[in-house]
């Protein structure tokens, strides 16, 4: 009993836990069958934890911090980010920081997922340009080297070999121009797609976190402490009984000494000292 009361009092007297919950909306462009980017995963990611730890100068390790962050969501785009802490202000600060950093990372990752393709396209642009310029220069150089070749071809008096060479150069220049134009068209489409995706991956804080005492957890802790104390107390009692070599009953005295017990004097309690009733 003493163990139970002590541990319960100790638990009740220990600092209470606080919970702070921030509510967020995180829009996802996926059709629901396959999520491109899960906001819940981002909230409890190491990247967010590292940023929050640095931002708030927390002493906790990343693992400890992540262990105190919980994220819950239903079928809608609403997410609840809950942080537990012994200090109410810190719980709220962490919850709000996690929400903001997770939102930023979500948008960053969501829009940044097509950027490698744009980078690749940019690399090809120079190649297409060079090919087209080279083809155009080759055609111009040919025409300068053979003045009047264009008129001669039109009149049908040109040397067939020269006419064939120029025709090839014209085809090369046209092919290079077409390739460059098609590239630009594709690149524009990709940029437009990236911009629209950036708008689709959107996350913002709906409700800032305010810390509240976590009474459920406190009660649970008291219950756990009480249960633990009961187990410990019971263990102590069993151990004491096991180790107790004291004489408790007349029969034990008789076994111990080999002499009969001829009188057992009760403890002088109030009941024993009251006048006995005649039966």
């Amino acid at each position, binding site marked *: 009993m003493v163990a139970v009361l002590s541990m319960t009092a100790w638990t009740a007297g220990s600092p209470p836990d606080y919970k702070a919950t921030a509510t967020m909306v995180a829009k996802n462009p996926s059709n629901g069958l396959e999520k491109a980017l899960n906001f819940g995963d981002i909230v409890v990611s190491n990247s967010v934890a590292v940023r929050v730890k640095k931002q708030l100068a927390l002493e906790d390790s990343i693992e400890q911090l992540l262990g105190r962050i919980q994220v819950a969501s239903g079928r809608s785009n609403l997410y609840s980010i809950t942080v537990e802490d012994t200090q109410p202000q810190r719980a709220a600060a962490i919850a709000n920081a996690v929400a903001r950093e997770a939102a930023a990372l979500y948008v960053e990752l969501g829009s940044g997922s097509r950027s490698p393709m744009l980078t690749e396209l940019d690399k090809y642009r120079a190649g297409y340009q060079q090919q087209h310029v080279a083809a155009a220069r080759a055609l111009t150089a040919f025409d300068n080297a053979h003045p009047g070749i264009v008129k001669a071809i039109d009149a049908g008096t040109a040397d067939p070999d020269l006419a064939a060479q120029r025709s090839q150069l014209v085809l090369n220049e046209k092919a290079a121009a077409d390739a460059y134009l098609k590239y630009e068209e594709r690149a524009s489409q990709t940029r437009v797609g990236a911009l629209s995706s950036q708008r689709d991956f959107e996350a913002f804080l709906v409700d800032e976190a305010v810390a509240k005492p976590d009474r459920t957890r406190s009660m649970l802790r008291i219950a756990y402490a009480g249960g633990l104390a009961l187990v410990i107390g019971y263990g102590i009692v069993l151990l004491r009984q096991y180790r107790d*070599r*004291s*004489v*408790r*009953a*007349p029969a034990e*005295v*008789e076994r*111990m*000494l*080999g*002499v*009969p*017990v*001829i*009188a*057992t*004097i*009760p*403890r*002088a309690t109030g*009941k*024993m*000292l*009251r*006048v*006995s009733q005649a039966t």
Partner: protein
Amino acid sequence: MTKPLILSHERLESRFADAYRSLRVTVAATNGRHAPVTVLVASAGAGEGRTTTVANLGIVAGQTGSRVLLVDADFRRPSLHHLLSTESSNGSKRADEEFDSKRLGLTEVIRGIASLEETVVKTPFPGVWLLPAGTDLERPSDILASRRMGEVLRSFRGQADLVLIDSPPCLEHVDAVELAPHCDGLLYVVRAGDHDRSAQRQVQAQLLQTNVRMLGVVFNGA
């Protein structure tokens, strides 16, 4: 150690007193007509209830009309006179005061300095007389082992129906072992919760070697 509880007048009808009455009957019934007169009450350690047993057993025996003499042979820590006076039925301090005025007791009787009549003190309890330890308490073991001790105890038989002798704890002093051969019987007191089983066995073996008649064990505080 619990505080000794003496059977004052208002407690004589309690179940606590009944336990001592049962003990008196058992002691009286031992060997029928040859019931022991001089009974040594001993225990292994201090605080087992030895002196309380002497006092309460004497009180319930006195209630039956018997002449009871309580002998305080605990020369190391004599306490019977305190117990009987402070817890007397009418609240008087008679035994204590009378003892203090006389300051004579068993040691004086053994040395032949005083007679039993000169040393015995009347207690507030009917039929109960007390022979205090006395004043000359040097080398008590020698006094107890003397031939005179046996003679004195035998002389008590004609003076009382029941003589109950309190003694020091056996684990601390051998006085009880010295006294035992001069007595008709021995009551051994064990307090419930006692831890030292080996010490109890050792004391028991010592007492039995004196060939004293073991009347039985009083299990105290059950």
